[in-house]
C-alpha cells in the first residue's frame, strides 16, 4: 500500500543543505504494522514526516513515495489535503503540544470530521464518544467539554489516538507516541493502539528508539542508521535472525531485565546523522567487523540488509 | 566562546551596518571640537535661516547658528544621555533581579511589590513628576528615566534568572557547596549576559526617544545647549516660517540612531535564543 523508493531528504539548516535521509526504501502492506527504529539523528522521524508531507520549510525531497499507487510527493495542494483526510493520520510524541490548548477536547476530536466530511456536531460528537470508549475513556461526554490541561499525558495520547481514527485512515503514522509517557502508561496506550489498529484494519508506520517495543507491536521492522535503512526483518526473527552488525549491537547493548552481566557489549562511538557520516558504509567507524572495503564503498541494500560482510557474519 | 564569525545572512549584515552607524555617530560626538566647522552656540542674527552654503553646509537656524556644528555637538548629550540611562537602569535592574531571584522569600516578595508599584508610572510620566520636583535638566531626566526603566529590566531579568537557576548545572554547583555570590557572579550573570545585552540595546532606543521627548517638552536638556531633542523643539516655530530644516535634521538623526539600536537589539535577541 505504501511504497517508498530511494527516498532522500535534505533540510536547510542556517541556509546550508543537510542530508537527513540518505537513501531509504521500504514498503508497508495494507493492515501491516511496520516499525522504524533508530537512535537520534537516524532520520526515522523525518521519514514519517515525509510520508505525511509535513517536512519543515525549505526541505528538499527526492525519490518516490507511493500510497496505493498515488505519487505522494507530486500531489497538488488539494489532492494532498484529500490524502491527509482520507488516507493517513499522524500521532505525535508529545500529545500536550499537539493538541490546541485553548480549545476543548471535543473541538479537537470533531473538527476534522465536521470540516472534512460535513458531519453535524451531534453526529461527530457521538462518534467521538464511541471512539473515546474504545480507547478506554468511559466518560467521553464529560471529557469532550474539558480542556487539554485538565487531562493527564496518558489520557491525552488516547485522545490523540481517537482523533487519528475519527477519519478512518488507512495508514497511521505514529512518531514515538509513548516516549513521553511512564512505563505503565506506555504499556496501556500501546495496548490500546495495537488493538484498535488491528480491529479497524489500519496499517501503521511506528517510529521508536525502543527495539523491543517495536518488536512487540510490529509485523516487520526496519533499522535506520545515518539516514538509511540498514536492515529490515520480521519481528518474530528479531532476536534470532538479526544480521546487520548494528542491529545485533543494539540488541545486545541493552541491559536485560532478567539477567545481570558485569559489562555490556557496546557499540563504540556515537550515532551519526546522515550529513556527518563518512563515505563508504556509514556504520564503518563503529563496526567491529569493519574491513577496508567498508570504508571505500557504501554497500547496497540487498535481500533486506545493507552490509558488505553479511554473507560471512550471519 | 566560539570565534566570532562574520554573519552570513542578510539579517546579520544589517546588524553589522547598524553597529557601524552607531559607532560612527559616537565617534562624531567624541571628536566634535575637531569636526565642527563653527562654534555651535555662536549667534549671528544676520545669518538666520540660511540655506546650504560653503560656510554653512546645512544652513543656519533662527539665531544664525551653524546647524551642522550644532548637530555634531548635539551628538554628545543625545547619545550620552540614553547611554547613562541604560547603564544605570541595567545595573540597578540586574542587581535587584538577580538578588531577589536568588534569595527568594521575603526579599523577592518585597522587591516584586515595589516593582509593581513602579510599573504604575509609565516611563515619561515618572520623569515628568521628578522634573517637576527637582527642576529641569539632563541629569534629573536621566536619573528619573533610569528609575522608571528599572522595573521592566528587573522583571525580565528576574524571570530569566529563575529559569536559569532552575537548570541542573546551577543545582550541581549548589550541591558542590559553591557560595551563592560566586555562583551568581561566575555562572548565573555571565549566562544571562547575552539577554541583558540585547535588552539594553533595545532599551537604548526607548531611552533616546523618551529623553528627546522630555527635552522636546522643555524639561530635559536646556537650550541653548545643542541637543537633537532640543533642536527638534526649538526648530518648531521656524516651520511655520517655511524653515523646517532644524527640526527635521535633528529628528532624522534621532530616527537613524533609534532604528540602528532597534535593529541591533533584534539581532542580539535572535542570537541569544
Amino acid at each position, binding site marked *: 500500500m505504501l511504497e517508498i523508493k530511494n527516498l532522500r531528504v535534505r533540510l536547510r539548516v542556517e541556509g546550508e543543505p543537510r542530508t537527513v535521509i540518505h537513501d531509504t526504501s521500504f514498503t508497508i502492506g495494507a493492515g501491516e504494522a511496520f516499525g522504524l527504529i533508530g537512535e537520534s539523528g537516524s532520520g526515522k522521524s523525518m521519514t514519517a514526516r515525509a510520508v505525511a508531507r509535513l517536512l519543515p520549510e525549505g526541505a528538499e525531497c527526492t525519490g518516490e513515495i507511493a500510497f496505493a499507487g498515488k505519487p505522494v510527493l507530486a500531489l497538488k495542494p488539494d489532492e494532498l489535503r484529500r490524502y491527509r483526510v482520507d488516507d493517513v493520520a499522524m500521532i505525535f510524541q508529545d500529545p500536550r503540544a499537539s493538541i490546541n490548548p485553548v480549545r476543548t477536547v471535543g473541538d479537537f476530536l470533531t473538527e476534522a470530521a465536521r470540516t472534512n466530511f460535513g458531519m453535524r456536531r451531534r453526529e461527530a460528537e457521538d462518534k467521538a464518544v464511541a471512539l473515546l470508549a474504545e480507547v478506554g475513556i468511559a466518560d467521553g461526554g464529560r471529557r469532550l467539554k474539558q480542556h487539554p490541561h485538565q487531562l493527564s499525558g496518558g489520557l491525552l495520547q488516547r485522545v490523540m489516538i481517537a482523533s487519528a481514527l475519527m477519519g478512518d485512515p488507512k495508514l497511521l503514522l505514529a512518531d514515538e507516541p509513548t516516549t513521553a509517557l511512564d512505563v505503565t502508561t506506555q504499556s496501556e496506550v*500501546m495496548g490500546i493502539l495495537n488493538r484498535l489498529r488491528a480491529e479497524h484494519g489500519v496499517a501503521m508506520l511506528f517510529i521508536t528508539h525502543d527495539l523491543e517495543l517495536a518488536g512487540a507491536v510490529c509485523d516487520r521492522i526496519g533499522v535506520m542508521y545515518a539516514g538509511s535503512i540498514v536492515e529490515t526483518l520480521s519481528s518474530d526473527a528479531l532476536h534470532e535472525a538479526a544480521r546487520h552488525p548494528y542491529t545485533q549491537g543494539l540488541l545486545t547493548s*541493552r541491559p536485560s531485565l532478567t539477567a545481570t552481566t558485569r559489562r555490556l557489549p557496546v557499540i563504540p562511538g556515537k550515532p551519526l546523522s546522515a550529513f556527518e557520516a563518512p563515505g563508504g558504509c556509514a556504520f564503518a567507524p563503529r563496526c567491529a567487523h569493519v574491513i577496508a572495503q567498508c570504508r571505500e564503498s557504501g554497500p547496497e541494500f540487498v535481500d533486506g540488509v545493507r552490509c558488505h560482510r553479511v554473507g560471512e557474519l550471519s | 566562546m566560539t570565534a566570532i564569525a562574520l554573519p552570513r545572512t542578510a539579517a546579520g549584515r544589517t546588524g553589522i551596518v547598524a553597529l557601524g552607524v552607531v559607532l560612527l555617530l559616537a565617534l562624531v560626538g567624541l571628536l566634535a571640537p575637531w569636526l565642527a566647522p563653527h562654534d555651535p552656540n555662536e549667534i549671528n542674527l544676520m545669518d538666520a535661516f540660511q540655506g546650504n552654503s560653503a560656510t554653512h553646509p546645512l544652513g543656519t537656524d533662527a539665531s544664525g547658528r551653524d546647524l551642522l556644528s550644532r548637530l555634531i555637538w548635539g551628538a554628545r548629550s543625545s547619545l550620552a544621555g540614553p547611554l547613562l540611562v541604560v547603564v544605570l537602569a541595567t545595573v540597578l535592574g540586574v542587581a535587584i533581579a538577580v538578588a531577589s531571584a536568588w534569595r527568594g522569600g521575603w526579599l523577592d516578595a518585597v522587591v516584586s511589590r515595589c516593582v509593581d508599584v513602579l510599573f504604575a508610572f509609565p516611563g515619561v510620566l515618572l520623569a515628568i513628576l521628578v522634573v517637576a520636583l527637582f527642576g529641569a535638566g539632563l541629569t534629573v531626566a536621566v536619573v528619573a528615566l533610569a528609575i522608571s526603566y528599572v522595573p521592566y529590566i528587573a522583571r525580565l531579568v528576574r524571570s530569566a534568572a529563575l529559569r536559569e537557576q532552575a537548570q541542573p548545572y546551577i543545582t*550541581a554547583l549548589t550541591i558542590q557547596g559553591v557560595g551563592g555570590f560566586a555562583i551568581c557572579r561566575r*555562572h548565573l550573570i*555571565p549566562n544571562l549576559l547575552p539577554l541583558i545585552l540585547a535588552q539594553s540595546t533595545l532599551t537604548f532606543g526607548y531611552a533616546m526617544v523618551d529623553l528627546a521627548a522630555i527635552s522636546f517638552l522643555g524639561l530635559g536638556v536646556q537650550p541653548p545647549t545643542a541637543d537633537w531633542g532640543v533642536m527638534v523643539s526649538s526648530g518648531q516655530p521656524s516651520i511655520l516660517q517655511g524653515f523646517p530644516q532644524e527640526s527635521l535634521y535633528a529628528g532624522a538623526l534621532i530616527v537613524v540612531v533609534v532604528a540602528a539600536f532597534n535593529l541591533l537589539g533584534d539581532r542580539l535577541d535572535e542570537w541569544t535564543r
Partner: protein
Amino acid sequence: MTPILEAQGLRKTFGGNVAVADVSFALARGGSLGIVGESGSGKTTTARMLVGLEVPTQGRILFDGEPLERARSTARRRERARGIQMVFQDPYSSLDRRQTIASCLDEVLRVHFPMSAEQRAARVSELADLVGLDDRMLRGRPGALSGGQRQRVAIARALAAEPEVLILDEAVAALDVSIQAQVLNLLADIRERTSISYILISHDLAVVRQITEEAVVMYQGAVVESGPTAKILDEPQHEYTRRLRASVPGPGWVPGKALASGGAA
C-alpha cells in the same frame, strides 16, 4: 557494618501535597541501591533531600551513622558535598555552557581541596582519564560534546569531590541505547576501582538490574517493596511492582497485558 547512607522515615510535604509519604532504606558501603518509580512516585524529591536541596518534613538521613544536619551554610554544603554527590538526567543543561570542561572540574577542586594549580591540573587529567575524556575535550566547551560525553563530564565533576555516595538521578535515561551501554559500563568500572556507593534513581528496570544489588520500589510517595534487585524483578511481590515489571517490552511481550484497572486520570 554501618550503612554508608540511611534514610529513616523520610516525609516531605509541599503545602498540603504529600510528595514523599514514608521512605526508609539503607545503602551498604560500596553497595548500589536502586530507587525505582514513575513520575509522581516521589523518587526525585527523595534524591533532593539526600543531597540537602530539600529539608525533610519528618524523618532523618544518616551518613556513616551520623545524622545529617540541615545544610544551611556554604561550609555545611561543602561538607555534605564531600560525602554525597549527584549526576542529573539531562546532559545538556547540567553543565554551564560558557565554561570549558577543564575549568568546570577545576572549580570543584578549588572549592574542596587546598591544592596548587599544578596539582589541580594533574587531578583534572586523572579524572578525565577515569571517565574517558581526552585533552581536546577538556579544553572545549559543552557545546562541542555529545550527550554521552557530557554525561561523562558530569560524572567526573561529581567524582572530583571524592564522595562516598554518588546519586544517579535518571543519569542514563536521556541517552541513546548505544551510548547508554557505554555509560553503564563506565559506572560499573568506577565502582570497581573506587569502592564508591551508588544510589540509582530510575524508572528503567533493566538499567536498575544492571548496576544495583538492592532496590526499593516507590509508588505515590511510599516504598512499596524493597530487597535484592534480582529478587524484586524475578519474583515481584507487590501488585504495583508486578504491573511495572509486566509493562516492560521484551520477547513475547504483549502491550497492555499489565493493564490491571482502567487507566487513572
